[in-house]
């Protein structure tokens, strides 16, 4: 797992011919940890949530193309919430959750005809160790997940073929996500993207552990 591989993957994209490098992008994912409160220190009459009640896998996400929005995901409860970016300062003031791990997905963005590709590495903030390499593929003409399924699968096949030729250690895995579980509909939205990043991270961690 090194930057060399990332460079190779980028070359793979550029090898498609008309891929135009468009610039850098960055998405930040924060894994929160609940802050344990000391019941005696609170002066309010509001009920103090017991540590056991607080969700464990609370994720927060900033997407690269939506700087004004912040996404919260509770994976076990299958909830996703889109909020204004100012909610982060609110979180700081409330001090009910603390950021346990902050991960950055960053890299280059390419336009390949009607496809928008974002190839990037996953690094932990302040650590600079490469955790993984990921790619986001967006097919611009369609917004329906159902209608674009075949196109995306075909693209994945073409991509896998191109990557195999480079004989890199490791391969790209696409995890299918059931959006309906989270109450999302067929029309693709930034919330879908947020969920996909969350799944990506989970997948990444699962692979690292095994």
């Amino acid at each position: 797992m090194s930057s060399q591989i990332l460079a190779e993957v980028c070359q793979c994209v550029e090898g498609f011919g008309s891929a135009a490098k468009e610039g850098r992008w960055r998405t930040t994912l924060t894994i929160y940890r609940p802050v344990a409160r000391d019941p005696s220190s609170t002066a309010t009459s509001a009920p103090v949530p017991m540590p056991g009640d607080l969700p464990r896998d609370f994720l927060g996400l900033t997407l690269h193309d939506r700087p004004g929005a912040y996404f919260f995901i509770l994976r076990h409860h299958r909830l996703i919430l889109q909020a204004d970016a100012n909610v982060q300062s609110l979180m700081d003031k409330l001090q009910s959750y603390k950021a346990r791990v902050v991960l950055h997905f960053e890299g280059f963005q390419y336009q390949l005809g009607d496809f928008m590709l974002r190839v990037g590495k996953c690094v932990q903030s302040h650590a600079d160790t490469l955790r993984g390499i990921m790619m986001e593929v967006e097919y611009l003409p369609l917004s329906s997940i159902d209608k674009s399924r075949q196109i995306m699968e075909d693209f994945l096949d073409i991509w896998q073929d191109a990557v195999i030729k480079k004989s890199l250690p490791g391969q790209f895995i696409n995890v299918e996500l059931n959006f309906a579980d989270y109450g999302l509909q067929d029309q693709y939205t930034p919330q879908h993207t947020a969920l996909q990043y969350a799944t990506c991270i989970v997948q990444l961690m699962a692979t690292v552990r095994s």
Partner: protein
Amino acid sequence: MMPQAQQTTSAVGALAAPQDPLESAGDATTEAPPKQVALAMERLTRAARVIADIRLGADRLLEALFMAADARDQSNSKAVEFILKEESSMRQHFQDLRALGRQLEDSGVLNGSLKSRGNSWGLHMPLVCPDGAVVAYAWKRQLAGQAGASAVDRTRKRMLASDIAEDAKFFIRIFGLALKAFTDQKRRFFPHLDDEVSGDGEIGIAKKRLNSQGLIMSQREELREKKSLSDILKDLEHEFPNARIFTYQRLDWLKRASLLSSSAIENSSDPLKEQILNHSSNTRFGSVNVAAADQAAVIELLVPSVFRAVVSLHPAGSTNPDAVSFFATDEGGNHIHARGLSVHHVFRHVTEHADKALQYFVCVDNNLSLSLLLRWICSHQTLFSKTCSKCDRLLVMDKSLALLLPPVHRAYQETTTTVSSQTESTPPTKAAHPDHISAYHIGCSADDC
């Protein structure tokens, strides 16, 4: 029985785009004052109209000749009267055109160096010019908009005028030949026309495909039932329940196009809002659909989540399509109209192919062209799911364009041949069900597709 007059396509469509820019800017030494420019423009417009009339007259004459050729005895005399009447009106038109030509010459718009330009009939064929309609229209607008003539504009005006003159000459020749051929056998019409006219090849091939008998039969069909716009749309709705079809007046469409741009951005996270938008526009224009079918100038074909096609009719309320364009369902903005281009490559290529299909349908069978076109458009509902009939894959990298595209070419010849053969076979089966229309990648297209 008087033969019905065929619809004429716009006169502007008759003018072709000259391929090489003239270097004769040096000819114009004096500045043309704006008044002369306006006068010249007006004369050019009149000339264009006269040519349209000539075309219409020529069509009518040919039709009458046809009818006379295989009609029964009682209609023969009527056909002869009709021909005589048309002949005198044609003579009048030609005299008008000559007069206009002389006026233009005198005002210095046409000059000798342009008249001697070579004969390139393949490019000047008035029946089909895939770009001609658009370019000439754009020029007219451009010229009209720039009252103060620059050297470039003067050159262009001269080119336009010389094209009109050459078109007129072409008509005179073809008319003379047609009359000569009539005194021989009827069958010698088409070879004559093909030799003269099919420089481009595509229309020649199209006419050769429909044998003369098929053409006579389809002409009979035309004359018997000329469907109205609302009939065509109703049939289409039955056949394609997925597609949503709306009609608009031209200005109404422009308003809707700008609404689309604002809604595309906001509604991406709110499908309920989009439903409301569609519903409200439907009810707002829904009553217009039924009531003002004679003013409908724009047809919108929406296959939800797949594409939006915009067809323009000219003149309003008729069944003559004159432009078509494809867009993504989420696309919005002022470029969403029948002559606009999508921002997405896939839809651009589909639109390019659709232009050819439109010209084919118009050429082959003018009265059925709208229903053929709309059915062909609806066959694109499988644009992102139907694999190529040749290589059996969906997404393929096109080497020359370096783009990943699904099969964007859908065959259009197949629709018409099965429609014409349908008139001969007795159980009236559905003609070329759109699921059976083959799709091809750009690189996989058969040569005659």
